[in-house]
């Protein structure tokens, strides 16, 4: 007899549509102070349904120069965002003028048992020119575990206001054994002018 799990996932998909990614929710910024994915709210699933969740960022555009794109988690369905994070951060950079390159750890952007928001881009300007933005992804592993800390890994590429391309890598863990049931994204100041964040589960 087909089980619930069978009927849910183990089905013949139409030709060409096979894949393990399941789109859960799309949020589109429009001068938005925050974008939040809360389990059980507005069709969002962020629980033990999936072991891995992926947030995809498409052309995240700040309302002004000097902004950093951030995220934090919640253990109380978004009542508060401030879980202890310990994380690492490094980046590769190159300017359009070809006078500055490098790859280096960035201690300004990591966290050590901090409840601050984790930076997704460098501690420098995310450019606000019309054609500048940030695209990339963040993976969150097993957020519903009540035994382990919750690991995350992310990378993105963004246009720096000084006409650099900068690729950022961050990883770390929410140092809690409570389930993470919400994730919030925002700029350190001002709004997210435009852009899209998609949440996927890996089935």
């Amino acid at each position: 007899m087909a089980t619930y799990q069978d009927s849910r996932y183990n089905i013949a998909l139409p030709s060409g549509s096979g894949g393990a990614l399941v789109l859960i929710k799309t949020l589109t910024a429009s001068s938005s102070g925050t974008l939040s994915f809360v389990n059980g709210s507005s069709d969002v699933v962020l629980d033990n349904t999936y072991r891995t969740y992926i947030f995809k960022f498409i052309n995240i555009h700040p309302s002004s120069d000097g902004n950093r794109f951030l995220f934090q988690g919640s253990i109380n369905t978004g009542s508060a965002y401030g879980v202890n994070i310990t994380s690492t951060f490094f980046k590769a950079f190159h300017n359009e003028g070809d006078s500055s390159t490098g790859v280096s750890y960035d201690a300004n952007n990591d966290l050590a048992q901090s409840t601050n928001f984790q930076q997704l881009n460098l501690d420098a300007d995310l450019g606000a020119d019309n054609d500048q933005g940030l695209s990339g992804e963040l993976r969150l592993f097993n957020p519903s575990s009540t035994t382990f800390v919750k690991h995350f890994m992310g990378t993105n590429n963004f246009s720096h206001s000084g006409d650099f391309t900068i690729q950022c890598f961050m990883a770390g863990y929410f140092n809690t054994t409570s389930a993470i049931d919400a994730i919030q994204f925002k700029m350190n100041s001002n709004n997210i002018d435009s852009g899209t964040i998609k949440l996927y589960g890996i089935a």
Partner: protein
Amino acid sequence: MATYASIKYDMDLSSNATGTGGMTLLSTQTASSSATVDFTSSIDSTYKEYLFKCFNLHPATDEVSLQFQVDTGTNTSYNQTMTTTAFQSAHAEADNDTSLEYRTGLDLAQSTSFHSLSNVIGNGNDECISGTLSLFDPSNTTFVKHFTGQFSGYGSGNYNYNSFSAGYVNTTTAITRVRFKFSSGNTDAGTIKMYGVS
């Protein structure tokens, strides 16, 4: 009554939560002594991300880098302006050399050249390169087009190179075409699959 789609994904289907996302295989190109491997269709506004998965690309010539460029419309010049980064970790099979370094020889600064996705790869029978390249929102006519990539290569000299690339195509014109090639010589064998991520 529950619909097929709602049974399938156990969620309400709204305009914001379609539940039908995933990776859709759009094209598979198999190299066979190919000067270039081109994707000239299906790159449009259907998807916000296009993912290229490269499997065992084997160069005909020793010590060559895997490269890519893009183009617009039906153009065939593959010479869009890019600014990019490139860094890698490396480890010799002899275990006598390791490194993590930025590679100024592989990056681009407002250049119309091909971007190198890897350090030099060997052409020994078992030597090749595999990895992924993500191109974000290529049809957008407001923003530059960001990309990120990671490749593991069997380098000439018997090294493993873990190569990281990123950057942007500095144009607000829609990107419709992507070309892969080695810096010299043909792509002797290998497969590249293009997926749309919805």
